[in-house]
């Protein structure tokens, strides 16, 4: 990316307090989202991807503690006052959820939803301009103008999701964060919505952070991908590169265990994702990693850049100077107890 990133996440930490201890949901994550690019954030449940998405927008519950930086232009969203942050949400930073009814008020017509949104964030628009922008955005989503005055319940699930996306996009935000936007939708509708999201850059110039557990979606729709495991980014880089030659063992195993039309044999990763209150020492994936070395169990891996611009958090890629003697020998792992299987 030659231009400046839209959002720059630096060393972000999101910790939750629970009676059992502190849950380290997001633990030192750095990420850049470039202008008009589609970045996929992928991982299994509990890896912290949703928390990261919300953390960027400052939408975390009270019991969460936030540390680090989220740079939007010159401003740091972490240090911003809640009021200033609220003003950014909408016109600059948009968010769409999995369940499309959450932002739609069942008692308001679609027309009213758009009017409210536009009036709130862009006062000074005439009624005619409001209508024109709304209909145009809705039209791009395939919602006909004849249905502008209907209520949310008169639309199907897929159409409601499109309306939600339109509501987020009508303000022309620089960044849209979509958290599992298609998980509850049918296959064909999902593909239709993905096409809309993948085309955001052409039609709206908006960058998209697509959070999902579905690797297929990421491979098809995203320019770059970040794979998350236990609150950290295991690997990040160009989507094509990551999927054709995964660097991190977790990425590789995850791809192998994904069932697709080409699957001839079932693979799975032994064990279960770690407890985020007491994560394993050293690399968090080492108890389940087929390539684990001795150093992986004692020292935290250091993020390494690869030639093609990727980043990976894994001792297999060095730096060799830091690994102590004998650290590269294969790790003797305890067999994972059957009871610890997911």
């Amino acid at each position, binding site marked *: 990316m030659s231009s400046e990133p839209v959002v720059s996440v630096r060393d972000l*930490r999101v*910790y*939750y*307090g*629970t*009676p059992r201890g*502190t849950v*380290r949901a997001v*633990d*030192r994550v750095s990420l850049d989202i470039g202008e008009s690019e589609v970045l996929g954030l992928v991982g299994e449940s509990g890896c912290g991807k949703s928390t990261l998405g919300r953390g960027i927008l400052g939408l975390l519950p*009270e*019991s*969460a*503690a936030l*540390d680090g930086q989220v740079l939007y232009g010159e401003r740091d969203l972490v240090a911003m006052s809640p009021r200033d942050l609220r003003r950014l949400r909408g016109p600059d930073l948009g968010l769409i959820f999995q369940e499309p009814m959450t932002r739609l008020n069942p008692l308001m017509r679609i027309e009213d939803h758009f009017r409210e949104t536009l009036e709130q964030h862009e006062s000074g628009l005439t009624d005619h301009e409001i209508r024109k922008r709304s209909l145009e955005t809705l039209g791009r989503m395939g919602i006909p103008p004849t249905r502008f005055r209907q209520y949310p319940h008169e639309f199907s699930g897929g159409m409601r999701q499109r309306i939600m996306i339109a509501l987020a996009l009508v303000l022309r935000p620089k960044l849209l964060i979509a958290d599992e936007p298609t998980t509850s939708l049918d296959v064909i509708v999902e593909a239709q919505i993905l096409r809309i999201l993948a085309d955001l850059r052409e039609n709206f110039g908006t960058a998209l952070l697509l959070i999902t557990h579905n690797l297929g979606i990421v491979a098809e729709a995203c320019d770059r991908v970040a794979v998350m495991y236990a609150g950290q980014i295991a690997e990040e880089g160009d989507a094509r590169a990551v999927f054709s030659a995964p660097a991190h063992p977790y990425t590789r195993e995850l791809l192998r265990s994904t069932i697709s039309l080409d699957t001839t044999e079932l693979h799975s990763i032994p064990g279960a994702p770690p407890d985020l209150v007491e994560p394993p*020492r050293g690399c968090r994936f080492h108890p389940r990693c087929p390539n684990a070395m001795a150093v992986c169990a004692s020292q*935290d891996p250091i993020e390494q850049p690869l030639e093609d611009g990727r980043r990976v958090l894994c001792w297999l890629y060095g730096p060799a100077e830091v690994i102590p003697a004998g650290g590269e020998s294969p790790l003797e792992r305890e067999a994972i107890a059957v009871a610890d299987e997911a």
Partner: protein
Amino acid sequence: MAVPAQVERVPARGSRLVGVRRAFKPIGEARGMARAMLWVGAGITLGFVLIALLAPLIAPYDFDTFRADGERFPQLEAPSRDHLMGTNVQSTDVLSRIIWGTQTELKVVLISLFFSIAIGVPLGLLAGYFGGKLDRVLVLIMDALFVFPFLLLAIVIAFLLSDRVGRGVFTAAIAITVVYVPLYFRVVRNHTISIREEPFVEAARALGAKPFTIIRKYVFFNVVQNVPPLATLNAADAILTLAALGFLGYGIQPTEGAEWGYDIQRAVSDAASGIWWTGLFPGLAIVLLVTGLTLLGEGLNETINPVLRKRPHVKVDLGTHGELS
């Protein structure tokens, strides 16, 4: 498949109780407002229960004692050393009547609570689970009872029963029972209907379980959580109803026991003459007990009701997790 050598023995009965205990575990986790309400309410209620239980020991006199050592007590005497809360127009000791009255109130309320729950909850379960005609008929009856002004209903029932059974603790209890059965019925029925649609209930049907088994094992435990908050709030209301009945003259017979509402009614004429102790103390007793029960009920509601329950909030100190080892 190897048969495991040793399988731990845990008595089945124990595990059922553990289930019930788990349902009420959130009480221990209560914080803030909810916790304060719970403990204050429980404290007050417990205080009254103790008074009722220990009445024979702590009441200076019996509820209708109007003389001692051959001498009649003074009439309408202000609070003094002999009579800490004074005496009323019949020369009975107010304090004693308050203490014995506690017993009466709690007796009636407990009996009526028991019957209300014993009738309302099973009917609610059946109506909710089976639906259909049974449900429609029961809902019709219960709604009709519900809609009736409760005091009027209690009076009518007390009136009708007093002819046959005589006025007493039992009659008052039945009158209150009838008023509150629809409440339990409705709450239990509604919750049953929503539980009925849950996948695990459908799974039980798919296993071949009979409807009564399903109700007993799958529905009941999930629904019973609602009962304690409801019962305590119900008890608070029942006290007021009983006092109202007593005030209007339809409560228990004065010869059967002391009753606060009745006392207040007698005290109405005293007020004009500036005699405050005959009315104030019974009134305070009612207010205090009802408040205690209400606080307890609301506290339970806040803690057990999963919608209202707040997760315990634990602070995080990022500093201690600074550098990773």
